[in-house]
């Protein structure tokens, strides 16, 4: 390896280099396993781990990595940042479980509130500041219902795992607990976590009522920068799409990553989040971080 202290150095073209955010120790197991499998299928690939999505996106747009396993919010920023630098990004693949999700705002079953408008004067708990599913999207849905956030209703944020774009479940769980403890009037969470918290016993069956539900949206995708070696990126996508749930070698990794099949990427499911990011002033049109108090 040639030593190169130049911090603007970009990734070479012989190995596809992808980034992933280490929101949990299992990320190492997952990408180590996928890497081994991909190398076994003759794809030269390696990965680097980031502590937060913002640096991963910046490195992707700077060409230091070719691909990034991005949260939906990281996609939004990557798209804006790339455009501002005269580059483009594309969504190569996503998980089957990334498509058509929704988030809900729930109240306790005995709450006097029956529609979003009834939340005037109330306190609503959300996940971390940068959680698309438990903060940005549900707040925007309340905004669309006519509520002026911060004026008509108060937001109580549970900032756990800031910089992980809501991948850490802690903020949503704390919001759900606060709701059941009577500390807040409503709580925001993604549909899957409403089920998970019900299973965990944090939300007793029948103890909550949905007062607002977002339109379907998409979650993570494998974002590729246009400067990435095209043949490697194409092969990367083909191989991921070819992963078969009946293959005992990859099935445990698919189980761990929470999918049964990779799907071709699509960007139609990020419209609501683009809107929410603008309304909240989270990033500007050039992908600069504008959110007050956001320190990943």
């Amino acid at each position, binding site marked *: 390896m040639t030593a190169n202290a130049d911090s603007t150095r970009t990734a070479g073209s012989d190995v596809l280099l992808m980034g992933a955010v280490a929101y949990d120790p299992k990320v190492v197991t997952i990408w180590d396993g996928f890497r081994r499998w991909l190398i076994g299928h003759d794809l030269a690939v390696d990965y680097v781990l980031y502590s937060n999505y913002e640096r991963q996106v910046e490195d992707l747009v700077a060409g230091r990595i070719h691909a990034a396993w991005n949260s939906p919010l990281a996609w939004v920023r990557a798209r804006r940042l790339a455009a501002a630098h005269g580059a483009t990004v594309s969504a190569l693949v996503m998980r*089957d*479980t990334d498509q*058509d*999700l*929704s988030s*809900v705002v729930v109240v306790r079953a005995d709450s006097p509130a029956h529609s979003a408008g009834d939340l005037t004067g109330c306190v609503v708990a959300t996940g971390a500041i940068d959680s698309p599913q438990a903060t940005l999207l549900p707040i925007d849905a309340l905004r669309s219902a006519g509520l002026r956030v911060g004026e008509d209703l108060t937001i109580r944020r549970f900032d756990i795992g800031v910089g992980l774009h809501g991948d850490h479940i802690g903020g949503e769980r704390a919001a759900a607990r606060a709701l059941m403890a009577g500390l807040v009037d409503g709580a925001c969470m993604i*549909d*899957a976590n*409403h*089920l998970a918290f*019900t299973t965990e016993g944090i939300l007793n*069956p*029948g103890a*909550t*009522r*949905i007062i607002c*539900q977002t339109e379907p949206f998409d979650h993570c995708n494998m974002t590729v920068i246009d400067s990435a070696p095209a043949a490697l990126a194409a092969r990367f996508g083909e191989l991921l799409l070819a992963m*078969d*749930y*009946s293959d*005992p*070698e990859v*099935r*445990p990794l698919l189980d761990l990553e*929470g999918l*049964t*099949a990779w799907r071709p990427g699509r960007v139609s499911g990020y419209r609501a989040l683009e809107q929410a990011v603008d309304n909240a002033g989270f990033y500007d049109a050039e992908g600069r971080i504008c959110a007050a108090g956001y320190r990943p």
Partner: protein
Amino acid sequence: MAPGESVEVRGTDRHLGLHLTTWARRQGHRVVGLTVTKGGASGARWQASERAGVPGPTVWEKAPRRWGLAARGALVEAGGPDLSVADLDSKAAVWSDLAPRLYAQAAAAQWDPATAIDWSISPALPDEVEAAVVQVMTYLIENEQAALMVPARFLGRIHPHYREVAQLLAVQTADEARHIEVFTRRALLVSGQLGVSGAGGRASLQSLLDETDFSIASFLLSVLGEGTFLHLLSFLERYAPDVVTAQVCHLALQDEARHVAFGLGHLEEQLRVEPALRPRLRMAMERRHDALASTSGLNDEVFDALVVLAARGWTPDAIGVGHDAVQRLQVDMDEGRRRRLTRLGFSPQEAAELSALHTRNFM
């Protein structure tokens, strides 16, 4: 249901739609409203699966490590870690068709040391006779300790496909635990003291612990050692000077008969398919004999104690009778060993030679 088929879900929970969508997405099914269309993932998971043999006691010649800890007869999902510890994974190496029946018998024959023996009958023996009992018990305890540790070390190495063998050995170690308990209790019953532990006896037992081959270990421990102990325990039951001694020897003897039966049955079956094992068994005996040649074997204290118990008196005549009885015991032990060696296919000539090489410590 086949992939592509749909089912309409009905229910009263207000979150049914939300939870159904979430659950189905995770399982790879499609949902429209409350209609779920089955995806391919749940079937794909079991595509390369296989049955881990059949549930009954018909076992395979070889048990694959990929079955892991799955129950015999279970449908095993492909993938997952290979079993890392069970190297005793062939029928020839561990199995005996007797194992299921012997296990059932062993489980049914478990006795409670607290109630199976009448501890309230305190022996009132002359000091010398009590001391002889204590010395014999001290000797038995260390032998039982070896008999516990040897099967215990192999237990965790047996592939779960041959579970009846592991179950049988588990009960066998429990048997030995009780033997240790009752012999200890009898030893301490009157004097609260134990006798001596000879270096030669311990050397003999150490050589059993050193054996890492399951078949050779069962040969040395169960066929030869415990086989020889059958005679010793029945001798002790017969000449026991008190009820408690007679009872503890009697109960241990019943268990030991089972231990011998399994060792013998397993080796008989293994030798049928693997005759090359026979010369290895012979070599193991010769090796052990050579290793123990410079040790004293059974210590004098134990030998004298056996004579005292069989003598039932202190006259020179009585001592002579006792000595003769112990000589006869050794002849019986030798005959028993030769009979078992013959059952394992050794010629009478070979059986006699090998029996003579058996440790002077009996176990």
